[in-house]
C-alpha cells in the first residue's frame, strides 16, 4: 500500500517537474502519452480488473475524438463535446457489454473486434459526418475558466490534471466493494454468482466505465493533435492498447502508465527506426509472455513468491534434518 503511494508520488513529481524543461515536441509527446494512459486505465478496468475481453477499445477512443471534433466544427464548445462524448461512450459501452453476457472469452474478443471494425468503417465512409478519409481539421484547444489552453505546456498540465482526477476516481472505485466484486467476477464468475454478486451488472458496467475513460481520452486527443481522421482508431490500435495493458500488467494500478510508455513514448522517440522498433516490440511481447505472463509490474510479486518458496523449502529441509537427527 505505502509502496504504491511512494511510486505514485514519484511519478507525479516527474510528470509535474520535467516538461517545462522539454522542447515543444517533448511536451507534446508527454501529453500524447498521458492521453493513452487515460484510455488504457479504462481498458485495464475492463480487461485487467474485471477479466473481460475487449479488442475494440480504440473505437471508443475514436467516438470520443469525433464527438468533440464534430461538435466544435459546428461552432459549439469543447465543454459540450466532452460530456456528450462521455455519455455516448457510456451508452455504447453498456450496449457492447450485452454480447459479453452471452458469449465467452475468444468469441467475445472477436465480437469486440468486429464492433471496432464496424465503427471504423462508419468513420471512414460517412463523409458527411466525419469527413471520411479527409477527416476533420483545425480543431481548437479549449479554454478553462477564461484561461487559454492553446500553448503546449498549458494543455499538457490540463491533460495531467485530468489524468490525476480520473486516476483518483478509479483508485476510489477499486478500493470500494466494487473492486472486490470485479476481481471476483474475473477470477471465478460462477462462485461470485453463487455469493450474490450481480455478475451481469458488473460486466456491463466494466465495459461502460472503461469506454467512458477511452472517450475522455479521445476528446483530449482531438484537441491535442487538432486533426482527426480514422487511422488511429483501427483494430490495430485496439490491439496495441490491449498489448499496452498486458505489457504493463493487467490488474495492476500503474500498469497503464508503464504500458503506455512502452507502447507510445518509445516508438515515437525511435521513430527513425519504426519498423525495426515494432519488430523488437513484437518479439519482446512474445518473450514477455513466455517469461512474465502477468506483465512487467508482476516482477516484485514473482520475486516475493520465489523468496517464499525458497524459505518454505529451507524450513522443510531443516525440519526433515531435525527428524532425521532424532531417528
Amino acid at each position, binding site marked *: 500500500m505505502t509502496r504504491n503511494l511512494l511510486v505514485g508520488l514519484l511519478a507525479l513529481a516527474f510528470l509535474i517537474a520535467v516538461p517545462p524543461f522539454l522542447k515543444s515536441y517533448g511536451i507534446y509527446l508527454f501529453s500524447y502519452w498521458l492521453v493513452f494512459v487515460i484510455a488504457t486505465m479504462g481498458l485495464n478496468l475492463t480487461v485487467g480488473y474485471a477479466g473481460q*475481453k475487449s479488442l475494440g477499445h480504440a473505437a471508443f477512443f475514436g467516438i470520443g475524438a469525433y464527438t468533440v471534433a464534430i461538435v466544435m466544427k459546428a461552432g459549439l464548445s469543447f465543454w459540450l463535446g466532452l460530456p456528450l462524448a462521455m455519455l455516448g461512450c457510456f451508452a455504447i459501452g453498456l450496449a457492447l457489454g450485452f454480447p459479453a453476457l452471452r458469449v465467452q472469452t475468444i468469441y467475445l474478443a472477436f*465480437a469486440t473486434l468486429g464492433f471496432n471494425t464496424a465503427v471504423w*468503417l462508419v468513420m471512414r465512409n460517412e463523409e458527411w459526418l466525419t469527413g471520411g478519409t479527409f477527416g476533420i481539421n483545425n480543431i481548437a484547444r479549449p479554454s478553462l475558466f477564461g484561461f487559454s489552453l492553446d500553448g503546449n505546456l498549458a494543455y499538457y498540465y490540463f491533460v495531467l490534471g485530468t489524468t490525476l482526477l480520473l486516476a483518483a476516481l478509479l483508485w476510489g472505485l477499486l478500493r470500494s466493494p466494487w473492486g472486490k466484486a470485479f476481481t471476483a467476477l474475473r477470477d471465478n464468475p460462477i462462485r461470485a454468482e453463487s455469493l450474490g454478486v450481480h455478475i451481469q451488472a458488473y460486466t456491463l458496467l466494466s465495459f461502460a466505465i472503461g469506454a467512458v475513460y477511452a472517450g475522455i481520452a479521445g476528446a483530449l486527443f482531438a484537441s491535442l493533435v487538432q486533426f482527426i481522421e480514422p487511422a488511429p482508431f483501427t483494430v490495430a490500435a485496439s490491439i496495441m492498447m490491449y498489448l499496452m495493458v498486458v505489457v504493463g500488467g493487467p490488474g495492476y494500478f500503474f500498469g497503464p502508465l508503464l504500458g503506455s510508455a512502452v507502447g507510445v513514448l518509445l516508438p515515437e522517440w525511435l521513430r527513425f527506426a519504426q519498423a525495426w522498433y515494432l519488430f523488437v516490440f513484437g518479439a519482446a*511481447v512474445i518473450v514477455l509472455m513466455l517469461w512474465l*505472463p502477468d506483465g512487467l509490474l508482476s516482477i516484485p510479486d514473482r520475486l516475493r513468491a520465489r523468496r517464499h518458496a525458497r524459505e518454505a523449502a529451507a524450513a522443510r529441509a531443516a525440519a526433515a534434518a531435525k527428524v532425521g537427527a532424532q531417528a
Partner: protein
Amino acid sequence: MADFLQLLVSGLATGSIYALAGLGFTLLWQASGTINFAQGEFVMLPAFMMLAFAALKLPLLLSFALTCVVAVLVLGWAFKRGIADPLLRFGMMPIVVATIGLAIALRNGVRAGYSAEAHPFPSLFADKLFDIAGVTVTLADIGTLAFALVLVLGTQAFLAKTVTGRAMQAVAQNTDSATVLGIDVPRMVFYTFAINALLACAAALLVTPTYLAKFDMGESLGTKAFFAAIIGGFNNSRGALLGGLIVGVCENLAAAYISPTYKDAVALVIFMAVILFKPQGLLGKRVERKV
C-alpha cells in the same frame, strides 16, 4: 445473370483461399487450444520465402516445395515448441497475446528486413479466359477453386479415414483419453501444426498473384480467416470450408450490388450475426458450460 455467375465463381475462388487459412486455424484450435492471431502472417511469410527462392532463379514449383519444408520447420515445429507448448497451460490469453506479438514482429521484420514495397508474384495458372454458357471465368479462378477444394477435402479425408488422422481427431476431442489410449499426443499436435503450415503455403501460392506480396497482406487475410472459421463453426473442420465460401461469395456480391466501400463489412456483419445468434457457428455443436 451472367454477371452474377461471374461474381459467384470468383467469390468462390477467393472464399476457398479463406477456407484454407481458416481450416488451419480451426485445426490448431481443436487440437491444442491455440488461437493463432498470426495466421495471416503465416500466409505472408511463405509468399516472401517463395519470392526469395525465385530470386535465386528457382522454378515456381520447386520454390513452393522448398518453402513448404521451411514452413513446416519454422511455422510448424518452432512455433509449437517455442510459443504454443510453453504457454498453453496458462489458458488462452497468453497465447493470443504472444501470437499478436508474433504477427507484429513478422510483419515489421519483413517490412524492415526485406521490403516495404508490394511485389508481383508469378501465378500458377496461365492467363486464360473461358466462356462457359455465356459466363466469362478465368483459369486462375477455376484453378484456385479446384486446388483449394482438393486440399481442404483431402485434409478432411485424411483426418477421417487414416489411422493418423483419426488419432489427431481423438487428440482434438479429448486429450486425456487419447493419452490413455497410447496415442502420441505431442506428435499428433505437431502434425496439426505442420498441416496448418502447409495449408498456409498453399494459400500463399494461390492468393499472392492477385493481391501482390506485401508485408501487410496478412492483416486482412488473417481477419477473414478467423471470421470464416467462426462463421462455419469453430469446433467443426467442415465449418471452415463453408464459412470461407460464404464470406468470399457474399463479399463479391455486396461489392458489386451494394457498395464497394462496405465490402469489408460483409464478412463482419455475417460474423456478428453468427456470434450473437449461433455462437458455435453454422455447422458447430453447442458447447455446454461446465460447473
